[in-house]
């Protein structure tokens, strides 16, 4: 992500310090993570100390300070999915990909995150990969779905 684009995003929010979270969200959704140079630029332009930005970037779940893999896996651990066996689905994903929630594999193929309810409770347990929802997962189906991504 180049500086010009970062400046554009900041300008969209009139470089207001109260829009800090909104600016970071825009950067995150475009770059899929928060690169260091972007944070430095935001700090400079908004006149907000870097410590506060770091605090926000680590507090909210939407932000990542490391690059993400090609495919982002979200396993829903909402209550409805939990009682329908989401844990088993998560275990299977961990076995197949070798990564735990919050991690990205070395080839940058998969990133794994857990989420607390995607609001598709009728389809639980739900696994979302790159925004596509896979519903009514079982351990065996989970492994089969993961194989489709490379």
């Amino acid at each position: 992500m180049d500086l010009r684009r970062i400046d554009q995003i900041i300008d969209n929010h009139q470089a207001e310090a109260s829009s800090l979270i909104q600016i970071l969200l825009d950067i995150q959704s475009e770059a899929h993570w928060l690169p260091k140079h972007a944070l430095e630029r935001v700090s400079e332009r908004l006149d907000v100390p870097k410590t506060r930005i770091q605090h926000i970037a680590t507090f909210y779940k939407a932000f990542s300070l490391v690059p993400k893999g090609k495919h982002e896996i979200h396993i829903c651990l909402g209550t409805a999915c939990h009682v329908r066996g989401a844990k088993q689905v998560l275990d299977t994903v961990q076995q197949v990909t070798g990564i735990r929630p919050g991690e990205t594999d070395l080839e940058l193929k998969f990133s794994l995150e857990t989420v607390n309810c995607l609001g598709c409770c009728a389809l639980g347990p739900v696994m979302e990969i790159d925004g596509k929802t896979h519903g009514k997962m079982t351990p065996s189906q989970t492994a089969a779905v993961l194989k489709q991504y490379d």
Partner: protein
Amino acid sequence: MSRIHSPAELENIRKRIQSERDPRKTCITLCSGSACHASGSREVARLLIEEVERQGLSQTVDIRRTGCHGFCERGPIVVIHPDEICYFHVQPEDVSEIIQKTILGKEVIDRLVYSDPQTREKIIRESEIPFYKYQVRTVFGSNGSIDPKNIDDYLAIGGYAALAKTLFTMSPEQVIEEVKKANLRGRGGGGFPAGSKWEGSRKAPDPIKYVIVNADEGDPGAYMDRSLLEGNPHAVLEGLIIGAYAVGAHEGYIYVRQEYPLAVENVNQAIRQAEEYGFLGKDILGSGFDFVVKVHRGAGAFVCGESTALMTALEGRVGEPRPKYIRSNIKGLWGRPSVLNNVETWANVPLILNHGADWFIQFGTEGSKGTKIFSLVGKIVNTGLVEVPMGMSLRDIIFNIGGGIPNGKRFKAVQTGGPSGGCLPEFHLDLPVGFDELTQAGSMMGSGGMIVMDEDTCMVDVARYFIEFLTDESCGKCVPCREGLRQMLKILTRITQGKGREGDIELLEELSETAIEASLCALGKSAPNPFLSTLKYFRDEYEAHIREKRCPALYCKELIAYYIDPEKCQACMICGRKCPARAISGAKGKIHVIDQNLCTKCGTCFEVCPARFGAVRKLSGVPIPDPIPEEHRTIIRKRSEQ
């Protein structure tokens, strides 16, 4: 569209929109809420439009992509008006048949209509299906008939009439009086009377005030606010503008989770349209009242659903709560009087002003008036969003509307109120659902999540699950919540792993007491609820885990083993092939045996073993029988004599 300058002009525009719409014209509505998107409604919509064009029906048939209808279990849902023919689970391949048979041929497609699971009776009309029949959908009802991206749809059903009425015929005090009379209580969890909250802000001396929509719906298993915001954003906006007028605020915020992209999109579009029409901005409808609203996307923190944390987040900081010595309706956002209400609460406001408080209080119980939307999820036949009058019993909601428990299993408990709520057992099924009734039973209303659990759900694990959730979401500001919950989680985890000790229950009780007494905000204060309510009603399960190292629900992984019953195994090799750990030995015609040392307890064998064999069993608290000797494993099949 130019701005509307007076109520009379608004009524003229409404009449014009209504007259342009022929109620007898065929209209295909398609649910386009998030849940239906996930089941493929986008593709269905694309094909519907294509097919209608191909058949040259564009002039005679309207297609409307509406918000969530609530019956998510059977999405994507297509309803064909004016006959109200309702089709469920509509897949892309069904589209051309629907156009051919139903639109052109006036014939109902049997396969797609509702079929009663028990009686097999087919029901064609949406309103006659039991799931809808027992509901009272005052707030949620319009979702299925309007396109949320089109403000004209909202105007056609009487939208913004309440706003016009309020601005021109009522004083702010009268509005507050009406809301107080309706006894509208906060739908987000607290149940605090909205009218009193507004009055407090109105009377606060500071001239700058704010109104805020809390759409940071974080309770897992609850998604009614998202569906409202996605499906009927103008109702929420209208409520907010009325509230702003009553309170005397000229600026408002909608705090919505970024995990709800469609809600963000629809509400932003609704704001743009409302600005164009003059329902927002300067001199609204020529009344002289100014009001603007901004959308703030939440970046993912459960605690930000808490009012003071949400306001801190709005200021662009880390969303940590603060003590409420002074309530936020007196000193809130930027230190100014701020009224914060939940999405559903705001959406009720136009109804109250339109129909009057007397109409509103005909629904509900003594202490809880109106209706409430619940999200009925978990082990339930009809997963979805249901709106019922307050006071309906849990049994009616779960069994009449929800259709009961699937797969012939037994009801065990229903969890209400989100992570801070509690689990209610079978003997509470006749409890009327209301704010005070649920609290008395040891749970709470919360935002309206209702998670149904059956005999396969382990209640100790449920408590562990919620405490884990809350530990993760604790902001870390105060010690009782940050450290106390962590210790509770440690103990609960150890119990579910079969390492529980005598005294663990008492220790958990002590930690609970401290968290309730000493935590800073409602998150910590209510965090022990899931533990306390499950202990109250399911103490025997805790004791079985601790004393017998047994999980009665056969759920906790460390306490169960999978075992293939040699009497029942038909040696079909399905489980053997599917086992990811290669822990199952056997061959065609040779009884399968699980190597307990290799087994990872993933449950695949249990899941894939054909139901008619039912050979894979879960065991807990009993020794696993020794595998039958090698020489006895061959199955000698009796040949059928024909």
